[in-house]
């Protein structure tokens, strides 16, 4: 296992290096540098431009610049943003990364959970009316033009019904005299979510290890979840942050809902296809011959064996969320990495654009790794081949 991880880590580092190099040279291949925006400015003399170029080292050879670029990245220095001068790029990214992460992580988890559940039943009742409705719905969700769906949701919930905020991350009026910045409060929300999740995982692992079966233990995880949430609310209430926490969650709701809804389609179809493929397996026939209950066959045989492609896809789409997130974040004005990337690209803020792009690539890579590890953990056959 360790050798596999080590090997994999090396592979990742090499890939990352090549990725950054490639990015750098593609950008270098573009005509002009950032001083060309001053080319048509009559107040800038050629000497001033040359001075600027010298100051930023643009007159040195490509290789010298490349080595400097690499050294800066390794030390975590992604340069200084043009548009928010003199804020470092890394500082901006650090602020926006959690927002993207929370939105897409929860949307992916929820949509895969629902999609897996629906897909399982859809395959179980293959050919019936409910199955046909689900499949048709999924295909429409997959092929629907996503910005259009988001528009409709915005129009209905925010504009027409007025239930949810139109866009943005927080309500600026409310936050004008807040004790903490929105970034800090958001950090606390993430801590609360992480602690709750860890607690839930711990409890269900304990339950499984003790082998407590039956109807009683089914209620333990929901109770733990409820208690954890209640205590989080109480904590926030005591520190007077509750209203700000709710404001962030309130703004999170619509993008989360739309993103979850649109992604159910693909996970449903994926699960359904995978389950139907497993239905052909000998061990499902054998399980029926053994007189096992339908619920056991559905969950422990069909769904369990079909989980592999679904989890791979989940891990990959978690990695991809940073790249696919551009559209969502733009539509809902959710100030995450995607929106930063788009605005920086449109506004000519190249250091920020490149920084955001590299971060996006890193997360895509992490998604691939997570997919590998998850499938290896889930399938005893693969678990063995790696262990050796």
């Amino acid at each position, binding site marked *: 296992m360790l050798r596999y991880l080590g090997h994999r880590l090396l592979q990742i580092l090499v890939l990352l290096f090549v990725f950054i190099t490639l990015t750098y040279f593609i950008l270098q291949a573009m005509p002009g540098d950032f001083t060309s925006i001053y080319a048509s400015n009559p107040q800038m003399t050629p000497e001033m431009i040359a001075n600027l170029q010298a100051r930023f080292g643009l007159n040195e050879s490509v290789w010298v610049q490349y080595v400097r670029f690499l050294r800066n990245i390794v030390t975590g220095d992604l340069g200084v943003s043009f548009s928010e001068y003199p804020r470092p790029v890394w500082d901006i990214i650090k602020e926006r990364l959690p927002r993207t992460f929370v939105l897409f992580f929860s949307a992916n988890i929820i949509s895969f959970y629902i999609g897996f559940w629906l897909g399982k039943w859809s395959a179980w009742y293959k050919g019936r009316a409910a199955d046909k409705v689900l499949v048709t719905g999924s295909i429409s969700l997959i092929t629907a033009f996503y910005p259009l769906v988001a528009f409709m949701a915005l129009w209905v919930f925010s504009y027409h019904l007025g239930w949810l905020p139109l866009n943005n991350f927080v309500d600026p009026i409310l936050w004008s005299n807040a004790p903490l910045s929105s970034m800090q409060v958001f950090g606390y929300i993430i801590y609360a979510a992480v602690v709750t999740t860890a607690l839930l995982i711990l409890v269900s692992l304990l339950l499984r290890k003790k082998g407590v079966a039956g109807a009683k233990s089914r209620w333990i995880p929901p109770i733990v979840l409820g208690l954890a949430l209640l205590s989080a609310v109480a904590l926030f209430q005591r520190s007077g942050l509750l209203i700000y926490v709710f404001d962030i969650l309130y703004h999170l709701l619509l993008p989360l809902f739309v993103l979850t809804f649109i992604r159910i389609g693909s996970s449903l179809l994926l699960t359904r296809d995978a389950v139907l493929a497993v239905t052909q397996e000998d*061990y499902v026939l054998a399980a029926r011959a*053994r007189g096992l209950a339908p619920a056991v066959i559905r969950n*422990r*045989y069909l769904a369990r064996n079909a989980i592999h492609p679904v989890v791979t896809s989940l891990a990959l789409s978690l990695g991809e969320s940073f790249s696919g997130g551009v559209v969502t974040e733009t539509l809902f004005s959710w100030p995450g990495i995607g929106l930063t990337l788009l605005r920086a690209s449109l506004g000519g803020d190249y250091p920020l654009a490149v920084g955001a792009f590299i971060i996006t690539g890193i997360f895509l890579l992490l998604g691939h790794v997570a997919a590998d590890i998850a499938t290896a953990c889930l399938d005893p056959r693969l678990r063995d081949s790696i262990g050796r």
Partner: protein
Amino acid sequence: MALLELQDLSLHYHTGRGVISAVNQLSLALDAGESLGLVGESGSGKSSIAHAILRLLPAYAQIRQGRIYFAGRNLLDLTEPQMREVRWRQIAMVFQAAMNTLNPMYTVGAQVVETILTHEPNMSSKAARARVEELYALVGLPCTLLRRYPHEYSGGMKQRACIALALACNPQLIIADEPTTALDVIMQARILGELESIRKERGMSVIYISHDMAMMAQVAERIGVMYAGVLVEYGCTIDLLAAPAHPYTAGLLAAVPSMADDVTQLQEIPGEPVDLYAPPAGCRFYPRCSRATAQCKEQAPPLLPCRRNRDGEHKAACWHLL
């Protein structure tokens, strides 16, 4: 009274190309404690019968007529929940050795325990585990293997585990569908020997399904020969082997190499297997039969007692018995 009785069973598969007549008006009986062998080439409908008894046929299969009595009840009349209780508790199955009959995601031990607890929900999981260990000892597998996953088993080990699984609920009948086909000869003989001794010890009935006449001669007390969905000959193993009455059985036996005979005399049955989408109207074997006449072409022969039989049980379906 017979433990299992098939009466006039006809089974069809509806495929994209048309309708296949897989089993045609088959009647068969099996007493408690008896072992029966069903022999036939692939596509003769022997596995279909096994699946029909357990009602595991796919949705495109249709039983047009017939009854399957097991311990006095017609299995075809039972509801699905009732049928689930019959499965494994009363009729268990050993699947083909080449099949993946075990769930790759769980340990083999967990799957046997799961099966026992499904049928005996009041049993404690500790008692169930104890029984699984007994079963493993019975089929000659070490208990350490219980905590292993199916992919860690060899072919022979897997098949033994499947036999242990089949015995888990003390069934009255075990259907062994090509139980040793994918195994090497030594392993075949060993596993069959063990299965036979367990059967005799516990007084169970076993239906062996195979294309291998030599294997049947070893284990079955009675043999039914199937051709293209029709039972063409049925009788006591000794009688049937000594004096086959149906030309097809005779052909099958001639195709088995014998140590005593000269190898050059090995014969094959001429012609191609029947097209089951449009089987011949009369005897299904007549296009390949050397003794066929006009009568064979027009009328299907009934299964009737042969002239030379000792106990009146040796029957064959042929107009021109050997």
